[in-house]
């Protein structure tokens, strides 16, 4: 009888706490973990993150003052945008982003990141609206799963070493306004975007084997490196 009422009390307190927590949105302790993880996974030779991303003084909204971090609200640790362009950062695509559950803008351009882009990227950055990975050393395929990042408005993958085909499913991204895969190692047909958002030849320039509008027509089923 005593145990039952104790258990009941614990459950009641837990439920009340959960309900109170319910009013707040995504993010917070996970966002701190996200940034800690990103910092740990990247080499930061110029010390941008080392100096600015200090996790000791943990007041409300402290991560909002970090270099490159923009929060949803100035007094809540919930990351909206991450802009770490031009910082000489080295490492892989930061998997820690998975814990920044409310992030929408990501700019990692002009760094020395390398390796593949994760093939479950839409689970890592589900709500991404701007993804700029340009001017790095990323390699491997452009993941098909990017097509599930349905909120993408800007997708910049130019100036990397992506190879293989551009997934045709990227044509499903109906909010896409800016798209570039120029200066990579891509081959095969350009995806069919709907007429509102077809992109010019500049978006595809300097790849060894891309074909199809706005470039030259594809001439064989597996368009290799020859374009007539």
């Amino acid at each position, binding site marked *: 009888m005593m145990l039952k009422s104790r258990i009941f009390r614990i459950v009641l307190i837990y439920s009340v706490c959960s309900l109170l927590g319910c*009013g707040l*949105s*995504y993010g917070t302790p996970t966002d701190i973990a996200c940034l800690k993880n990103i910092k740990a996974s990247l080499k930061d030779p110029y010390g941008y993150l080392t100096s600015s991303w200090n996790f000791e003084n943990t007041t409300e909204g402290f991560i909002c003052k970090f270099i490159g971090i923009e929060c*949803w*609200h100035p*007094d809540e640790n919930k990351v*909206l945008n991450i802009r770490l362009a031009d910082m000489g950062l080295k490492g892989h695509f930061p998997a820690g982003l998975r814990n920044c559950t*409310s992030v*929408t803008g990501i700019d990692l351009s002009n760094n020395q990141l390398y390796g593949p882009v994760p093939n479950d990227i839409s689970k890592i950055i589900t*709500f991404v*609206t701007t993804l700029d990975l340009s001017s790095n050393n990323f390699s491997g395929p452009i993941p098909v799963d990017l097509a599930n990042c*349905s*909120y993408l*408005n800007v997708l910049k993958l130019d100036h990397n070493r992506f190879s293989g085909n551009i997934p*045709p*499913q990227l*044509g*499903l991204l*109906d*909010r896409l*306004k800016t798209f570039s895969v120029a200066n990579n190692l891509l081959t095969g*047909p*350009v*995806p*069919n975007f*709907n007429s509102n958002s077809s992109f010019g030849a500049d978006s595809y320039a300097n790849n060894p084997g891309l*074909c*199809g*509008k706005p470039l030259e*027509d*594809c*001439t*064989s*089923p597996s368009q290799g490196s020859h374009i*007539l």
Partner: protein
Amino acid sequence: MRMLIEMMPTVLWFILAFQFVPRVVGNAEGDALNALKINLADPNNVLKSWDPTLVNPCTWIHVTCNNENSVTRVDLGNANLSGQLVPQLGQLYNLQYLELYSNNITGKIPEELGNLTDLVSLDLYLNGLNGPIPVTLGKLQKLRFLRLNNNFLSGTIPMVLTNVSTLQVLDLSNNKLVGDIPVNGSFSLFTLLSFQNNSLNKPPPAPPPPLVPTQTRSSG
């Protein structure tokens, strides 16, 4: 000459009288802010410095002015204020930042806020506001931050807001909004995160994929 001497006392009397006319008449912006002060309960006395007899409100704490002594910012976030907003806020014509978040302010969002055409940031989040999001907010063509989350706002999301091309951060979550979620214009940038915990209609399922094909093949 004689008439002049006779008029002297009257003239002197008028000059003297004017010394005592309070100089409040000058400042409409101070009056507007004072109207707000009167409508708010302020247990922490954050509005203590708000003295309407001063020539302008530019020395008031939590008020920022520009070089022409016109109010550009009101910073009263997290101030334990309650009470209601006032239509006179619409008279702060150079206002850029209206920060009233994390208080206990109730009542409606005044539609007169639509007159604040220089407004860059409207932060009314975490309060007890009810009623609709005024359609007039569509006039705020410089608005970058619109954070109305965590209130009791009802009605639909005004479509005109999609014409505010400067919008960068939108948070309408945790309200009682109904209707459709706009996805066009500036709202192309906003995800479900901006609209969570309302009674809004789920977005329609994505249209069936177009024939995704491989591109036209020319004969060799």
